[in-house]
């Protein structure tokens, strides 16, 4: 068994355990709420606050369940060597799994709403690894409060591209031009090229375009 398959298998199994834990938390919080309602004790001074806390628990259960579901799909990626999928699914999944990266750097990752489907045949693990790597590279360089809008595109020959459009907190600043002058820029070009992927800087669009290749 390949190492990635093993990692994926164990992680996927653990996500089921996480969901069970969340299910118990939700039912226990729900039961506490039910008991409070059933008691009809108007003398309990924290009734309203208690209800709000229960709502908070429920919100976090929903959040945890969404993360666990996404992590489960992610863990199953090594099951496929090549897969035909919508680039927007890649973006969706990675944005949810990059929440920590976004918060740590004080930047927002955004996806285009109602984006058109752009299908491509690719190694699903590779495309996500590359997207994460580029986000990891870009996020600390664009400044706190900035945004990266992710879009699925096609070039003039119909090749799928993933665009990362930067909107800085300080308008007028050409971040992409500055990034191109950094030694790390050459390193990331080389790193991606070794994975048959091209990255192009578009200063006029303040964007980076990724072509995942074959």
């Amino acid at each position: 068994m390949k190492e990635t398959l093993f990692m994926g298998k164990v992680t996927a199994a653990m996500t089921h355990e996480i969901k069970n834990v969340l299910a118990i938390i939700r039912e226990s919080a729900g039961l506490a709420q039910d008991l409070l309602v059933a008691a009809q004790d108007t003398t309990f001074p924290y009734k309203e606050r208690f209800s709000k806390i229960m709502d908070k628990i429920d919100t976090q259960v929903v959040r945890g369940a969404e993360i666990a579901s996404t992590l489960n799909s992610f863990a199953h990626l090594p099951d496929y060597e090549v897969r035909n999928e919508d680039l927007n699914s890649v973006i969706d999944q990675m944005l949810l799994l990059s929440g920590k990266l976004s918060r740590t750097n004080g930047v927002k990752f955004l996806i285009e709403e109602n984006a058109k489907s752009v299908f491509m045949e690719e190694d699903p693990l590779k495309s996500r690894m590359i997207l994460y790597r580029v986000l990891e590279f870009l996020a600390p360089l664009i400044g706190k409060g900035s945004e990266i809008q992710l879009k699925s595109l096609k070039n003039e020959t119909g090749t799928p591209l993933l665009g990362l459009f930067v909107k800085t907190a300080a308008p007028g600043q050409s971040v992409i031009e500055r990034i191109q002058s950094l030694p790390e820029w050459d390193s990331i070009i080389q790193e991606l090229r070794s994975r048959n992927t091209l990255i192009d800087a578009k200063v006029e669009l303040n964007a980076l375009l990724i072509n995942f290749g074959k």
Partner: protein
Amino acid sequence: MKDWKVLLVDDEKEFVVTLAERLGMRGIHTETVFEGDGALKKLETYEPDVMVLDLMMPGMSGLTVLEKVKKLYPKIEVILLTGIGSTSEGLTGMRLGAFDYLMKPLQIDELIQKIGLAISKGSSTN
């Protein structure tokens, strides 16, 4: 709702016991079992309107229990509980005769709604 009889089958005891108590508070008679084999044994003495059955259990799997229940007790409607990434198992279950499936963690109101629909279906076909 007071006449509804439900059997919860899941190896996560804390989950099942708590959920049963919540359903009980809403007037739904609920019994619990923590394994697939046990579920079949329980049906010899207790015939619920609806069985809420987890798919991922040690020993006899949820799908195997479902197949046996539909064969031996076709009147019992079965609602499956799936984990993540197991939507396809939920659909397989429906092909095997399950009424519907839900993903954990559950919304109790949604579960009760499904139980109600399952019972309505059962009474209209019986």
